[in-house]
């Protein structure tokens, strides 16, 4: 049958996996390094990230301060590493929150269809039509700026996207014959959702999650820029860029170093996410 041509082409498209492996090594290595440092920051002999020495403010990188010092004379290396911790906590947890809620909404919508779908889509519409900034400002302004609240605010912002991805994928999978087969054996909706659909949803959601992490890390920076990010003196990459941005003319590295680290991390996340996505299905997770 002529489907064979397409099949062969499809096999060919997944072909150069060896090259992918190479391409994966660098970003994956970087991510592991960042995660490792973020976890072990307390034990690797870093100076206190909030210890100030105003006399030493905005010193360029040197042997003493490998990455220089910031506007308050704090060690940038230490701040970048501790900042990784903050940024990763926000970046990882916020989308998880969004994915738990959004995923549940999206799965229910895609599986049950009908009224549930209408309601869920309406809910997503409302969240999307609502300027996210107001939401984020409300949370951080009303509940106070803390790591938890910033994470919560950004988590809520990631609900609609997660719900859309979950819904689109569920719609695609729920029509597969194996779901029908599960129903012919009398499996309950809950069992079908958790055993048949969820496992298939995880890979695209994971790929999307990797991308969401990078978006959230950037978004935390935007909140910091508006003065509503993680409270000082706890460092976060976004906050460091927002702080350093002020001195772009006199000490560009105070902004550029965290920016570069964030850049590399986001780049790596996207690379890995893209590869995971390619391994699943290029089309469905486009949203």
């Amino acid at each position: 049958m002529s489907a064979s041509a397409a099949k062969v082409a499809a096999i060919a498209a997944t072909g150069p996996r060896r090259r992918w492996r190479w391409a994966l090594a660098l970003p994956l290595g970087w991510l592991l390094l960042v995660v490792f440092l973020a976890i072990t920051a307390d034990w690797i002999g870093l100076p206190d990230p909030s210890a100030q020495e105003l006399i030493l403010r905005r010193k360029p990188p040197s042997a003493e301060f490998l990455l220089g010092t910031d506007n308050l004379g704090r060690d940038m290396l230490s701040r970048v590493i501790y900042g990784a911790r903050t940024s990763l906590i926000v970046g990882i947890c916020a989308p998880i929150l969004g994915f738990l809620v959004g995923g549940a909404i999206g799965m229910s919508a895609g599986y049950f269809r009908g009224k549930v779908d209408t309601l869920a889509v309406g809910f997503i519409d409302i969240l999307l039509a609502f300027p996210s900034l107001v939401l984020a400002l409300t949370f951080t302004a009303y509940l106070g700026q803390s790591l938890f609240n910033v994470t919560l605010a950004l988590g809520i912002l990631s609900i609609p996207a997660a719900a859309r991805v979950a819904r689109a994928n569920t719609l695609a999978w729920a029509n597969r014959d194996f779901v029908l087969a599960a129903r012919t054996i009398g499996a309950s909706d809950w069992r079908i959702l958790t055993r048949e659909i969820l496992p298939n949803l995880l890979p695209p959601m994971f790929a999307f999650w990797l991308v969401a992490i990078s978006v959230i890390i950037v978004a935390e920076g935007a909140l910091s820029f508006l003065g509503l990010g993680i409270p000082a003196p706890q460092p976060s990459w976004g906050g460091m860029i927002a702080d350093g941005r002020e001195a772009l003319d006199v000490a560009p590295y105070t902004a550029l170093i965290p920016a570069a680290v964030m850049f590399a991390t986001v780049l790596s996340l996207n690379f890995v996410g893209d590869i995971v996505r390619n391994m699943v299905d290029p089309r469905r997770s486009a949203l």
Partner: protein
Amino acid sequence: MSDLLAIQNLVVEYPVGGGRHVHAVSDVTLAVKRGETLGLVGESGSGKSSLARALLQLPPPKAGAVVFDGQDLTQMRGQALRAMRPRLQMIFQDPIASLNPRRKVAEIIAEPLIVSGVSDTAERTRRVRAVMEAVGLDPDLVWNRRPHEFSGGQCQRIAIARALVLEPALIVCDEPVSALDVSIRAQIVNLLEDMKARFGLTLLFIAHDLAVVKSVSDRVAVMYLGRLCEVADSDSLFATPAHPYTAALMAAIPVPDPDVPLGDTKLKPGDPPSPLDPPSGCRFRTRCPHAQPRCASEVPPLRRIGPAREVACHFPLVG
């Protein structure tokens, strides 16, 4: 032989937006006897798959009754229906799509047992192994593998094993071999025949390939645009089709023999109408070479014209 399954005045419609409905199955009455294989043939849009799904209540039909072993499935809900399900199983056209790509073969086949409450792991393992061997899969080789590691034919074996593991009474086979390669098709057809004998199954065998249907079916029902045209025992149907549509179908089949001249379908030119908007009266009339004014005004009822033979035509070719 008594009827295992009796479909009475079944109607399946589904909305396609804009207040319009596809008239997938219209007023179909059909019985499947215990132990027989009933072939159901028809072209795309004839409603044969909709019929299959409706009788499994996936989803329940719009109207009509589906009496299985004396109980009307359309009146059952929730737990009662779920308890009934293991007795009716289904095999699908696309074997790869009918298996969850994320689960291992053993899990897929064991799933029906888990759902129907077989909680003893050893017992489950035993029954899964047994059914694997029955369908010709080597349990030790396939146990922990996933569907994508198998070819279509092997996947269809897994699907058959899943359907058999609960030892159902009836299996609905929805185009079980049409996605398979020619050289594999015979294997699966033979397997189904073997399983039918071994487990005492009743089969509803849906296909568009007349030769395959002929080969497995005791009786054959022909559908066109949601209505039954003809129901007859296999040999007489193929020997002397009574409905002009059946005749046209048979004439259109390409025969793998260059010496057999191409038959004449005698069909009026044109494509089948849309099930969204089926013709009045006899639905085949727009293409029928024998159509009369009466065919447009009056729906021909399915009537008996022989001992095991029913036809829905005002002007049947036989009888």
